[in-house]
Every structure is written in structure tokens, then in C-alpha cells.
């Protein structure tokens, strides 16, 4: 928690300081009120007092009350300002940090976790900052000050107040010890209930096909019961809280007056009035003390939650980047358009086994190199090394004959048109999705966009959409089909006019016909571009200049379709599973 405070700016610290002054003023003025009350008490009990005197005290009281209100408003203003700008800064820091992450760091946290850290956790901190400035800081000041006011005004009364505070604190500690942990358990149990319900929903057809409705319902009932039990425990325990606090608050004034009766009876005549007015005032101060202690409790409820959030935020902000910009280079002109891997090994951070071992190959300018292999054979990992989503653990990945690490990241990425396995579309329009980002050559023209869409075989459906090129794309691209998303995502790469294409299984949602047309167009329209394709379908890669067969992270075959059919066993197996024997004989 302390660590995150270093992100507060000096101006905000200044604001904290100023609001501290206002808090003190607020407490001072609020505690003045019972003092005036004691003056009034004396006036009432002293025969022959002037009414004008009372009005005068009344005006002072009003001024004190107003003053305290104004101070509170100032505190509220500063608190809101600090809270909002602090959370804005944290959000911004987090966002920029995450943007600078490579895949290695992202996978360290997982995307959903990063999202919660940048949203919910920041909100938690904001709530905590504002509440602590408004309430939490005030409570101890109030408690301490009120205590000094009553100190020495009567040992018996102080005792009673002390006991009341002790009871409140004991109650709260008991709750803290027994109930608060249950709240944490409750979260897990709620997750369980949701999980079982989600299971039922996602497997709806299976549940019905297997007549397993009752099975699912019983399972749900078990988790539901667990959750209910804990909920019952926590809310029943909390049921003690309010009546207890209420009773303590009401009883304290009763006891103070009760004791007061005896004190007055025993006092000397001249002291009686003083004790009486002390009594009236004391009951007020005692209430303030107890209330402040109750407020103080909020710290213990809020702080653990906020500090968990703070830790989670710090964790992201403190993460060291593993992939850093190079000095910048143009590449070797004689090796332009060439990608080569030299003895590349790759191991995921913290992983034991190498995902890739001893990878060697060269893709020359204008060539198409395809990668095929079972799931988990390392195809995606291999091509992820080119745009430096990860860096090779050993060996060198070269683009244009130069180690990728020597480029500035932007410089490197501007040459690459990368299309991932699962297409990503952003909220916006078709055009804004195609003309996404920048390639270092200035903005894309509408003609660039249209041409890219045509090459990606997306013209037909785009022109049928409402608004055509300016048609709206919903968040996550939910309003276009899987195949359409894939084509748009390919168009985005084409629009970039890159020197290298990287297709990571980007054709899988297309039917064979579209797949073929797209690849033909691509070949005709983008001459001289080096293309790397990861694919599952033999049909997609049969005509590649070079096919690289991967198995368990190693290259087990390299060559053309025909060559591999006769030399590579893994390739034969894949081919046999997809093509009939007649076709293989071709």
C-alpha cells in the first residue's frame, strides 16, 4: 500500500496537507458545539440569565456548525480531486505499461487478470483514497481530541466511556477474526455456484442428451447450500453488530446521567452546577469518541482490500520488460526480404522443456514457406519469434540478414503483416479496422483499404453490409461471422503493404474455395513479398516453395510437397489423414 503512494504527485501531497488542515478545523469546530452547550446549560441553570446571552451563544454555535460544514466540503473537494486524478494516473500508468509488454509478460499475468488490475483494482484504490481522506483520517483526530476534552472531568465517566470503547473494539475484533475470513471464502463459493451454472449452460445440449438435468441440479444444489451456509453465518453475525452498537450508544448517556446524579448529590454546593453542565457535555463527547472508534474500524475493513489491489497494481508496474528496442538498422540490402533462423532454441520463461529446438531455415525474398505439424508442435511459437512477441532463448532470428533484436521494434514491425490464429477486430468501422495502426509511410488511403479488402476476398460481404466500408464493427467483431472476421484481419495485413506476411493458421475458417482464391490473389497482387504460413490443411500449403514439418519442436522434414511425401513420415501421415490414396498418388 505504501509503495503505491509514491505515484502521488507533489501537488496532490500538497492537497492532502491542505485537507488535513481542514480536517483539523472541522474537528475543532465540531467539538466546540458541546462546549457552547455547556455555556447554555450554565445560563439556564443560573437564575436571572439574559436571553440575549443565549442568542449570542446560539450564533456562535451556528457559526461553528457552518464552519465545520464548509471545512468538510473543502475536504470532500480535495478528496474527490485527489482520488480521481490518482486513479487516472494509475490507470494510465498501467495501460502504458501493459502496452509495452511483450507476449512473455502478458502470459505471465494472463489478459483477464491484467484487465481486472487496470479496472477494478484501480477503482478500489480510488474508493480507498477518497474514504480515507474524508472519514478515516478524521476518526483518530476526533477520538484523541474528544478524549482530551473529557479527560479530568470525572474519573467515573471516563471509566464508563473506556469500557464502552473496549466493548466496541472487542466486538469488532471478534468479527474481524471470525467473520471477515468468511467473506473471502464466500467469494470462492460464489464462483463455484457460477461455475456450475455456467457448466450447465455451456453444456446444455450434452446435459439434455444425457438426461443429466437432475445430476446438474443436484450438483448445483450442493454448491448452493455451501454458499448459503456461509452467507447465513456472515449475515447472522453481522446481525449482532447494529443492535449492539445502538445499545451501547444509548446506554452510555443513561449511565453518565445515572452516575452524574450521585456525583452532584455528593458535591459541594458551589461545584454542583459545574458538574451538571459537565455531565451534559460529557455525554456528547463520549458519543463522539465511540463514534470515532467505530469509524476507525472502517480502516480495518477497507485497508486489507485496498492493499491487495495496490499489490496487484504494483506487480504490473514493477514488471521488468524483457524485450527492449534495438539501436535501429536498415538491414543488409543484399539480403532484403529474407528471413532466416539460425540454431534457434526457445523455452518459455519458467518452462522446463524447449518448445523449439535447433531450428534452421531461410526464406528468400518472394518465397512462400509453410509450417505444418500437430497441435503443440511449435508452429505458432516459431513464427512469434519474428515480430519479437518472444525472443529466442538461443540462436538468432534474422530479418533482412540482421538480428531482429537490432531493429527498433517499430521499424521491425512496420515491415511485417501479421495475421493471428484468432482474428481480432476492434470497435469502429470496417475501414478503421483495415487501416489500423501505421506502417511508417503515412496514413492509408481509401483506395488502399478497398484494394486490401478485394484481395482478401471480403469485397462481397463488405459491400452488402450496412454502410459498406464505413459499416460498424461491434466490440470484438461480434457482428461478423468467423470467416468474415478472418478475411478482414487478412485485409488489414495486406493494407499494410509489408515486406513479409506471417499467416498463423489464418485460413482455417475459410471454405476451400475462398481459401484458394485468396491465396491466388495474394500471390498475384503482392509480388516479391516473403510469406510464412502456418496451416493445418495440406491443401493450403501444397504449392509452397518450401514446407517445414515440425514435430515436438523439431524440424523433421523440409522440402516441397512432392519431396516430403516420399521422404517425411510425419508429413505422409498428415497427408494420408487428409487426402485419399488416389490424390496422394498424383
Amino acid at each position: 500500500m505504501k509503495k503505491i503512494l509514491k505515484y502521488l504527485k507533489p501537488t496532490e501531497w500538497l492537497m492532502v496537507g491542505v485537507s488535513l488542515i481542514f480536517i483539523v478545523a472541522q474537528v475543532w469546530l465540531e467539538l466546540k458545539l458541546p462546549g457552547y452547550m455547556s455555556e447554555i446549560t450554565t445560563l439556564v441553570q443560573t437564575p436571572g440569565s439574559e436571553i440575549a446571552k443565549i442568542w449570542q451563544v446560539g450564533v456562535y454555535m451556528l457559526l461553528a456548525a457552518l464552519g465545520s460544514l464548509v471545512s468538510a466540503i473543502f475536504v470532500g473537494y480535495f478528496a474527490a480531486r485527489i482520488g480521481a486524478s490518482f486513479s487516472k494516473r494509475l490507470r494510465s500508468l498501467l495501460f502504458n505499461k501493459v502496452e509495452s509488454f511483450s507476449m512473455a509478460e502478458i502470459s505471465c499475468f494472463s489478459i483477464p487478470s491484467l484487465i481486472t488490475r487496470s479496472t477494478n483494482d484501480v477503482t478500489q484504490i480510488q474508493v480507498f483514497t477518497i474514504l480515507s481522506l474524508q472519514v478515516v483520517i478524521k476518526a483518530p483526530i476526533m477520538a484523541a481530541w474528544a478524549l482530551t476534552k473529557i479527560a479530568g472531568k470525572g474519573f467515573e465517566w471516563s471509566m464508563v466511556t473506556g469500557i464502552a470503547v473496549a466493548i466496541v473494539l472487542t466486538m469488532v475484533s471478534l468479527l474481524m477474526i471470525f467473520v471477515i475470513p468468511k467473506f473471502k471464502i464466500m467469494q470462492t463459493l460464489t464462483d463455484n455456484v457460477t461455475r456450475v451454472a455456467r457448466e450447465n449452460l455451456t453444456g446444455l445440449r450434452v446435459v439434455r442428451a444425457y438426461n443429466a438435468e437432475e445430476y446438474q441440479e443436484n450438483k448445483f444444489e450442493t454448491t448452493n447450500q455451501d454458499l448459503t451456509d456461509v452467507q447465513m453465518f456472515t449475515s447472522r453475525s453481522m446481525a449482532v453488530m447494529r443492535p449492539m452498537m445502538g445499545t451501547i450508544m444509548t446506554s452510555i448517556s443513561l449511565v453518565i446521567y445515572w452516575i452524574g446524579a450521585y456525583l452532584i448529590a455528593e458535591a459541594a454546593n458551589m461545584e454542583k452546577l459545574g458538574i451538571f453542565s459537565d455531565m451534559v457535555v460529557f455525554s456528547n463527547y463520549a458519543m463522539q469518541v465511540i463514534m470515532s472508534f467505530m469509524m476507525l474500524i472502517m480502516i480495518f475493513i477497507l485497508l486489507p482490500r485496498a492493499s491487495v489491489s495496490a499489490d496487484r497494481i504494483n506487480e504490473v508496474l514493477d514488471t521488468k520488460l524483457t524485450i527492449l528496442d534495438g539501436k535501429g538498422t536498415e538491414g543488409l540490402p543484399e539480403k532484403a526480404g529474407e528471413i532466416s533462423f539460425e540454431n534457434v532454441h526457445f523455452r518459455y520463461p519458467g518452462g522446463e522443456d524447449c518448445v523449439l529446438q535447433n531450428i534452421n531455415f531461410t526464406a528468400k525474398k518472394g518465397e512462400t514457406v509453410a509450417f505444418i505439424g500437430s497441435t503443440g508442435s511449435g508452429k505458432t511459437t516459431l513464427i512469434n519469434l519474428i515480430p519479437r512477441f518472444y525472443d529466442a532463448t538461443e540462436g538468432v532470428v534474422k530479418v533482412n540478414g540482421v538480428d531482429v533484436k537490432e531493429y527498433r521494434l517499430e521499424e521491425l514491425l512496420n515491415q511485417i503483416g501479421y495475421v493471428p490464429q484468432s482474428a481480432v477486430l476492434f470497435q469502429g468501422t470496417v475501414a478503421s479496422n483495415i487501416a489500423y495502426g501505421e506502417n511508417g509511410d503515412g496514413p492509408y488511403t481509401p483506395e488502399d483499404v478497398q484494394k486490401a479488402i478485394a484481395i482478401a476476398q471480403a469485397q462481397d460481404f463488405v459491400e452488402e453490409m450496412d454502410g459498406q466500408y464505413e459499416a460498424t464493427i461491434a466490440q470484438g467483431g461480434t457482428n461478423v461471422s468467423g470467416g468474415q472476421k478472418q478475411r478482414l484481419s487478412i485485409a488489414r495485413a495486406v493494407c499494410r503493404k509489408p515486406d513479409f506476411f506471417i499467416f498463423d493458421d489464418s485460413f482455417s475458417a475459410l471454405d476451400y474455395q475462398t481459401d484458394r482464391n485468396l491465396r491466388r490473389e495474394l500471390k498475384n497482387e503482392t509480388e516479391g513479398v516473403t510469406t510464412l504460413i502456418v496451416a493445418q490443411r495440406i491443401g493450403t500449403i501444397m504449392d509452397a516453395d518450401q514446407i517445414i514439418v515440425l514435430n515436438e519442436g523439431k524440424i523433421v522434414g523440409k522440402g516441397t510437397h512432392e519431396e516430403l511425401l516420399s521422404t517425411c513420415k510425419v508429413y505422409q501421415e498428415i497427408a494420408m489423414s487428409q487426402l485419399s490414396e488416389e490424390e496422394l498418388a498424383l
Partner: protein
Amino acid sequence: MSNQTQRPSTLPMRRFRGNRPPIGSEKPKNFSKTWMRLLRYNSRYIVAILIVLVLAVLAATFQIVGPNQLKVMVDEIAKGLPAMVDGQPVSQSIDFKIITDIGLLLAVLYTASGLLSFSENFIMATVTAKISRRMRSDISKKINRLPLRYFDQTSHGDVLSLITNDVDVIGQTLNQSLDNFVRAITMLVGTLALMLFNSRILTAVTVISVSVGFILMQIIMKNSQKYFSGQQEGLGEINGHIEEIYSGHNIVKAYNGGQDAKETFEKINQKVCESAWKSQFMSGLMRPIMEFSGNFGYLAVCVVGAILAINGSISFGVIVAFMMYVRYFTQPLSQLAQSLQAMQRTAAASERVFEFFDQTEMDDEDHKTQKLSNVKGDVAFKKVHFGYEKDKPIIRDFSVDIKAGQKVAIVGPTGAGKTTIVNLLMRFYEIDSGEITIDQIPIHQVPRENVHEQFGMVLQDTWIFEGTIKDNIIYSKKGVTDSEVQAACQAAGLDHFVHTLPQGYDTVLDDKMILSAGQKQLLTIARAMIQDAPMLILDEATSSVDTRTERHVQAAMDRLTQGRTSFVIAHRLSTIVNSDIILVLEDGDIVESGNHSTLLRQNGPYANMYKSQWEN
């Protein structure tokens, strides 16, 4: 983890709460109707709730008579003060019997009030927890009684949100709405009556001064609403942007879109910051204004009370009593506002839950006594018509005759209605016209469960739940022995893999235990084997598996289909070349049927499809 191989249409992140308004600011469509319904729904707890309300009234009453007694006590103490009689201080003695009596009486009253209010809270907490449980169970049961058609239009997120958000809101607000409301009313009315009894002038002073603060608060509330909704909107927008950019991180990186994303982000962030501080400031005003309102009432009572006391129209004890009444009067006012808001939230959340309960369920089939038993496996579709939406037919006049034991493949382009055929056969959806028969018995004449019993099913969605491997394979079937599970896994080619796991068949499948797509598929095949139904449906069962793995799975599937009527849907044609009948579907009609070699010879759509696999 059951969800890793979804169809593309369900893959994109669903926005969780859809287009619902942000929590807290929502208004129910019909407040009183929903509350009546909520009470009717919980009629079994009505007695308990009534008791709670009575307890709340009693607890409040006991509490508010306190100051009135305290007044007597203070006046008694004041008697002990020296009064100036003829310039000489004279003090009477305090009657300690009265003091003790009142002290004891108040102690009893306060304790009783505390205990009553505790029992009230306790019962309400219990009732609320039970009501939440019941609602959750009913939602879970309702899920299984709704036709699949319902889920075509409703996202899973919306249904789950009923459980996670709405029932949760009901659980929280119910606890603090009804009884708080009654308690606040009692306090308000009771306090007012007792104040009037003591001093009309001071009552007027209290009510006026407290109302000033309260009205001020309402005005602020009204005017700050726009900042609150602005804040919610802004947060929604920025969270959406964060989600989108983080999820598309690889693209943002690869296309150098970071600068753009940052600019958009900063713009929204600035907006959020603006509305955040305004709304936080506004809501931060509430407490000071409430406090001021209390203080103002307190000082007004003190000053006016003092003047009255000097004039001798009231005793000092009345002032002390009013100092407490100011608090008793202010508190319920804000509680009233809170509980009304809570009741609105309860109603809004209940409305959504009830709306879900009101969805039309599948027909009750208890009266259907006819059953399918010892099924051979003859299946016929006779002139079947069907559409997911009434005016958009998907299946038109579909007829086919399938003999027991045949392997039927259904092929065709996306959207041709392949999965629909299966949905109709399983009675997941009811046909619009025509008839489907199993062993000559129309399937709509027997209960759905009975139809389901006849089929083992393996789907593209390899649905696996959190539980042991054994649980996942046995699933809902009863009386399955360990050796049967093992035999099924051996047949599915999974046994070896399971044995490599440290806990074998008792290994728990959860987020940490990641199975490959192929292994999951084998597991669902083993599940279907255990089911041992007379017929089989394989809906794109291997499409999420790479082709090499598919060959291993295929062997297991072939074993499973032996001797059973089976329906296979596949877009990889290699899996179905050995089928007895291949039905080629286009736009809901069978355009061709026959076995692989006849269809190839016909050189029609099937032959085209087949060739396009490797053509260049």
C-alpha cells in the same frame, strides 16, 4: 474450462451485463406488482417476515421512549442544583429512588430494544439467505426446463448475471429494505408524537431545521444524478477500451497501433477523471450535510430550548430529551431514503429474475405413456419442415429413410442445416410439420428423456466439467463400475494417457490440468461409450483436432459406431467416405444422397466439394 472449443459465433467476449443500466441507478418497471409477486413467491416466509416487522416496530418503540424517561431523570438531577431563593443558594435533595427506578427501567428498555432488534436482524438474515438460495435453485432448474430456442436469443452471460448479480442484489437489499423501512417509519412517527407531547415549539424547531438539511440533500442528489450516470458510462467506456486493447494486444503491437490506442485511452481517461471527481465530490457532500443538518437541529433545540427553559415553559430535561430526539428524527429520514432505494433495487432485480421464471417452458410430457424400448434403430424423417424463426424455414420438406445399423453422414456448406437435423432428431427443437420416427414410432409421442436415452452424442464442443476424469466419463449414468470406465477408455485409446497421470482416473480436471483438444475429444467419446445407447450422433466431433490426431480418434469412433445407427456431421470429408449413406444438404434440402463412390460418379455438388479439398 468446459468451454475451450466453442463455435466462432459464441467465441467473442460477451459483454457481461449486456445493455443493462449500471447497478444502483435502475428503476423497476412496476414496483408494487413486483413486490407483491416477491412476497407471494416467498409466501412460506411470510409469517417470519411479519414477525420481523413486529419486532422492528417494538425495538424502535422501546428505543424512542428512552429520551422521555431520561428527561424525568435529568429533571430530578436538576433538582439537586442550587437555586437562588432570596439571594441564598438553596438546593433540594435528589430523590434517588426515582433515579434508580428510571435507570433500571431504561436499562431494561434499552436491553430489550437491543435484543429485539438483534432477533429481528437475525431472522431477516436467515430468511434472506434462504430466499436467495431458493431463487438460485429455481434459476438452475429453470435453465433445464427451457427450450433450447430460448438460449438462441439470450446470452449465457445474461442468465449467469441473474445468479451472480441479481440474486446477490436481492440478498443484500432485502436484508436492509423491508425491516428498515418499517423501523424508520416507526421511529419517525413515534419520535414526532413524543416530541409533540413534550413541546410543540421545540418539535417545530426540530422538524424545520432537520428538513432544511434534508431538502438540501435531495436537491444535491437530483442534480448529481447526471454526474453519477456520466461516471458509470465513462467507466464502462474505459473498461471496454482496456478489455479490447488488452485482448488484441498482439495486433496492437504488430501494427504499431499503440500510439492510437493510448490517445483514445487518455481521452476517455480524462473524461472519466472529470466525472469521477464531480460525482465523488457530490456523494461526499452527503455526509457533511447530514451532519450539519443534525448539528443545526441540535443547536436550534439548545438555543430555543434554553430560552423556553428560562421562561419556565419547559424543564431542562426536555432539552436533553430533544437533543436525542433530533438524532432519532434525522436518522430515520436518511434510512427511509436508503430503504426506499434498496426496495427499488430489490424490485428491479426481482423483476429480471421473475421475467426469466416466466419464460415458456417445454411442454409437460407426463401424460405420454408410450415408450421406446429395445430400439433397433430404424429412423425416418417424413416431410419435415422447420425454421428457428417462424418465417425463415431452414428445413423444407426433408424426408429420408434410414435402416437400423447404417452410418449416415450429413455434409454440406455452413448454414445448410446439418446441425439442425440433429437438433430435431434429439427434440432439442420441435418440428413445424411432418414427422420423425424411431422404429416407426413418432418421437413426439414419447417423452423427450426417452428419445435422449436412445442416443449417445459427441459434439464439437468438447464439454468437460471440473471434476475427476472418472466423473467426467460416467457423468450422470448410474451404477457404472471402474472396470467399465477403464474398458471404455481403452476402447477410446485414452487409457494409456490416464495411467500416466499421478492420480489416474481420479485426476481432477480443472484450470491447472490442461488436456489437449484431442484428449478432450477422446474423453467425450469414452463418455458416449459408457452411455451405450442404441444410436449415435457425432456432430463435428473431430473438427477441432488436427488431422493426425483425428486418425487416432477416428479409430475409436469407428469402434463406437459399429452396429449402431449413427449420424455423422463433418466438414472434413475424409472422415465420412466410408458411410452407408451420405446426405448432401444445401439450404435445408437434400440435393444428393448415396454412398461415396456413387456420389463421386454423379459428379454433382458432393464431387465438387470433395475435389475442392486439394485443388489449386
